């Protein structure tokens, strides 16, 4: 019953999402392959109006470090932020941006995993927030990527959620404050004032479920702005905007950027996280680039242009690709899988129109930014999300939206959603490994009465599972152990084993190394390559880590805005991929499949 309002939001969000993808395709930038720089660059650039202020910085984070169970995610992060400054924070997924923000807000997640190293100073004073509520009280506001708005409330009601001004009623003496009546007039007044600061048109009485996405975003920001100083809390001083423009149309994004400038002029500092480099250049004072948990570069935004950043970001060092394969002439190779005009309705990863040829025996990588649709391709092809278009396997058309047909054709898919799609968490490893092969190919079954009874062959299941446990070095107490008791890396290996057990001709692997430690990562990648080399299985690997793709693939397709932008040999320099994601085609781009 709580869900239904969200459906409406989802609907609105989507249509706009689609629009914005199209409009911004060319301005998308990429944060790949930053070289590690251990030089700490302090912010030299300041806007004229703050030049003479010798005030202590509003926010200073010093030597911040954080590890999750020995996995270092932040190393010696230092930066300062002055009132009225807009700081653009860019970095790959998993670069440590969100962890850094979580530390700033004192999220539970941080405390529960052993806290962090370093110091956070606000107005020169060291602070340690126990909960996000403390951070809010200190005047730090956050606008999330997902809207945390109540759909059936008006803008005003959302802006003042749980901070409503009240009118006294006698009953409250008896039953406590909560029986005071809401002061609607004052509520409207406060929300109008907050909206005014943004200089946008937003009807304070409009229901959120009926708003265009942009207005929802403004409502969220207005909520933060309306937090004025009271005796226990301070007024908003610092605003963190996490990908606020990702779902907005061009116009909406423009007015948001304007509003941000306005806020900065009134002295509010803003940390702006986005993948859209053009916006960063347009609006920010300073750009801060993160990678691998370190700050790589902090530079003034003025005078920087996108291609320059992109080239500059990726053009320094190219890791030697460890994996050398003879690049064969693609023209002569057999096309195993052909995707034609594929569209997939996968929330957050919409595929719009993909044409792609996969050659027999190759490992092809699919890369691109988060949310651009790379994950939608395998999920749609498999039939887990509604899809349209055509796919041909070995020259035969495979009906879409039917996992069974996909599997029957001789393909398999290792999902990026291990816990949700990939595993039977409550069942044993044996079941997890053998289930798909058993159901699709009648393996591990003893047949009686001419196949009328298909009895589970426990021995065959055990043998197979043991084989894969040994082969993939799955750490478990026994093959009877439940999948939920394994670590992430071992769970991933189980998912792969499940797919291998089907002995597919073509294997889709989606984000195979997401959320697992480095040791397990290389094991997983090795297993994939070995499988490809020994059995000649064609592999389509989707990953947001370009280096990972480059280390294992023959060719890499870059997906943006739900389309394949181009396909390059994996040996191409990272810089070329970076440019491709930014939308700058070079002569190296393999246009054949576009």
């Amino acid at each position, binding site marked *: *019953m*709580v*869900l*239904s*309002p*969200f*459906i*409406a939001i*989802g*609907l609105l969000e*989507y*249509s706009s999402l*689609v629009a914005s993808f199209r409009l911004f395709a060319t301005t998308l930038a990429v944060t790949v392959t930053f070289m590690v720089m251990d030089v700490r660059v302090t912010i030299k650039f300041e806007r004229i109006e703050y030049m003479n202020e010798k005030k202590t910085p509003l926010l200073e984070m010093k030597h911040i470090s954080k590890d999750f169970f020995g996995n270092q995610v932040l190393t010696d992060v230092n930066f300062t932020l002055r009132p009225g400054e807009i700081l653009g924070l860019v970095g790959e997924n998993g670069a440590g941006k969100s962890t850094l923000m979580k530390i700033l807000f004192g999220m539970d997640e941080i405390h529960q995993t052993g806290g962090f190293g370093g110091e956070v100073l606000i107005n020169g004073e060291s602070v340690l927030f126990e909960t*996000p*509520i403390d951070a809010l009280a200190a005047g730090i506001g956050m606008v999330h990527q997902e809207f*945390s*708005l*109540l*759909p*059936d*409330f008006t803008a005003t*009601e959302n802006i003042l*959620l*749980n*901070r*409503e001004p*009240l009118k006294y*009623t006698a009953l409250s003496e008896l039953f406590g*404050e*909560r*029986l*005071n*009546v*809401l002061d609607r007039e004052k509520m409207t007044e406060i929300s109008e004032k907050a909206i005014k600061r943004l200089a946008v048109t937003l009807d304070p009485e409009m229901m959120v479920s009926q708003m265009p996405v942009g207005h929802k975003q403004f409502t969220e920001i207005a909520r933060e702005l309306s937090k004025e100083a009271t005796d226990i809390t301070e007024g908003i001083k610092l605003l963190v905007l996490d990908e606020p423009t990702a779902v907005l149309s061009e116009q909406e994004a423009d007015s948001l950027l304007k509003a941000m400038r306005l806020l900065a002029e009134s002295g509010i500092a803003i940390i702006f996280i986005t993948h859209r480099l053009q916006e960063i250049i347009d609006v920010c004072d300073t750009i801060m680039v993160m990678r691998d948990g370190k700050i790589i570069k902090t530079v003034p935004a003025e005078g920087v242009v996108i291609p320059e950043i992109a080239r500059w970001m990726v053009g320094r060092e190219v890791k030697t690709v460890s994996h050398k394969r003879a690049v064969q002439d693609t023209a002569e190779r057999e096309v195993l899988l052909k995707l034609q*005009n594929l*569209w997939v*309705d996968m929330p957050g990863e*919409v595929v*719009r*129109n993909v044409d792609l040829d996969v050659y027999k025996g190759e490992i092809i990588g699919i890369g691109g930014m988060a949310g651009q649709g790379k994950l939608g391709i395998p999920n749609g092809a498999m039939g887990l999300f*509604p899809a*349209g*278009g055509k796919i041909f396997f070995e020259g035969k058309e495979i009906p879409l939206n039917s996992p069974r047909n996909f599997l029957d054709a001789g393909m398999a898919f290792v999902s990026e959603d291990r816990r949700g799609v990939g595993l039977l968490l409550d069942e044993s490893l044996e079941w997890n490994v053998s289930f798909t092969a058993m159901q699709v190919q009648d393996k591990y079954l003893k047949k009686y009465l001419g196949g009328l009874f298909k009895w589970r062959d426990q021995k065959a299941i055990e043998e197979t599972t043991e084989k894969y446990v040994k082969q993939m070095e799955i750490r478990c107490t026994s093959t009877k152990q439940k999948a939920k008791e394994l670590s992430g890396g071992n769970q991933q290996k189980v998912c792969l084993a499940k797919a291998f057990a089907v002995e597919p001709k073509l294997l889709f692997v989606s984000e195979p190394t997401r959320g697992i430690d480095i040791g397990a990562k290389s094991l997983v990648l090795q297993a994939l390559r070995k499988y490809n080399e020994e059995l000649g299985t064609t592999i389509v690997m989707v990953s947001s880590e370009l280096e990972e793709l480059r280390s294992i693939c023959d060719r890499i397709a870059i997906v943006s805005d739900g389309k394949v932008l181009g396909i390059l040999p994996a040996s191409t320099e990272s810089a070329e991929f970076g440019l491709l994601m930014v939308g700058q085609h070079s002569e190296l781009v393999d246009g054949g499949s576009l």
Partner: protein
Amino acid sequence: MTLQRTNLQKVKRFLGNNTVTILFLVICAFGIPLSGYSANYLVSEVVVRIARNSFLIVSLLIPILAGMGLNFGMTLGAMAGQIGLVFISDWGIVGIPGIVLAMIISTPISVALGIWCGKILNMAKGREMVTSYIIGFFMNGIYQLVVLYGMGAIIPIRSNSLVLPRGYGIRNTVNLIGIRKSLDNLLMIRLFGIPIPLFTLVVIALLCIFILWFKKTKLGQDMRAVGQDMEVARAAGIKVEHTRIVSIVISTVFAGYGMIIYLQNIGTLNTYNSHMQIGMFSVAALLVGGATVSQAKIRNVFLGVILFHIMFIVSPMAGKNLIGQAQLGEYFRVFVSYGVITVSLVLYEIRKKHDRGIAGQILAQEQGVEA
């Protein structure tokens, strides 16, 4: 053309949203002439039942506001009300003072039960309805333990007319002669020959005003917020669990009062049965009035009472006149009561999914055009 379709969709949507109500209108439209009852009789019966049942049904509104669905646990309040009535019958307090005292006695019991019930429901988020339904059954066991074995043995009950001949436990039926219709008769007026218990109706009106006012309070606002999205509400600092418990407590207390009003009209207490049916009938009536699991308004209460009880009154007679068996009509009305709840619950679940489906369709269409 697009407009035409939306109009058609609108009609469809309206029909879809009001399936149950429309179904009932049809049943009543057929049933009334078949039963052969006079309009006067029907109207006066309906008035009596509005006065009798509305308070109970209104008590269901607040948990719906807080997103906890239909509170089948309202039987807990009904039990508390009955315990209050047993005591005042024992003490021989009659008339309005008796009713007021019964309400006072029921309040702490309702509050305690409500807190307990709310806590359990907080442990079963997402399946509140089935849980509250089982809570009703479970508490019925405890209630029997107290009333059938505790009263007269541990809890002192003096009156012999109340206690079973074996010396402890309350009799199966308790005559509430002392307070019978005392609320209704306080201000009984006749309009076109139809007796109208004005005072009871005023009490109900006051409760409705309270509900309307309550929605405007901070607590009411918090409940609406919690009902829409617990996580968002929690992030904003609203005490989600506490708010949910409060909503159940309020509902339970009102159900207790409602039960007392209901029983003063009936005049006899079926000690071990009265409360069991009341939850189901109240829920059914509310749903007939067009409420859903997630949304209920005061007008749903009254429309529901009227339609549901017309069906209830006419069906035995209609069954007799149609097939010659009154029994048939009685089974029919039981079937309809349960059927209504079933259909409402199913429609609610299906619609929840359907809305999601529409979002997908629109996307697919859009992308199809693009491609």
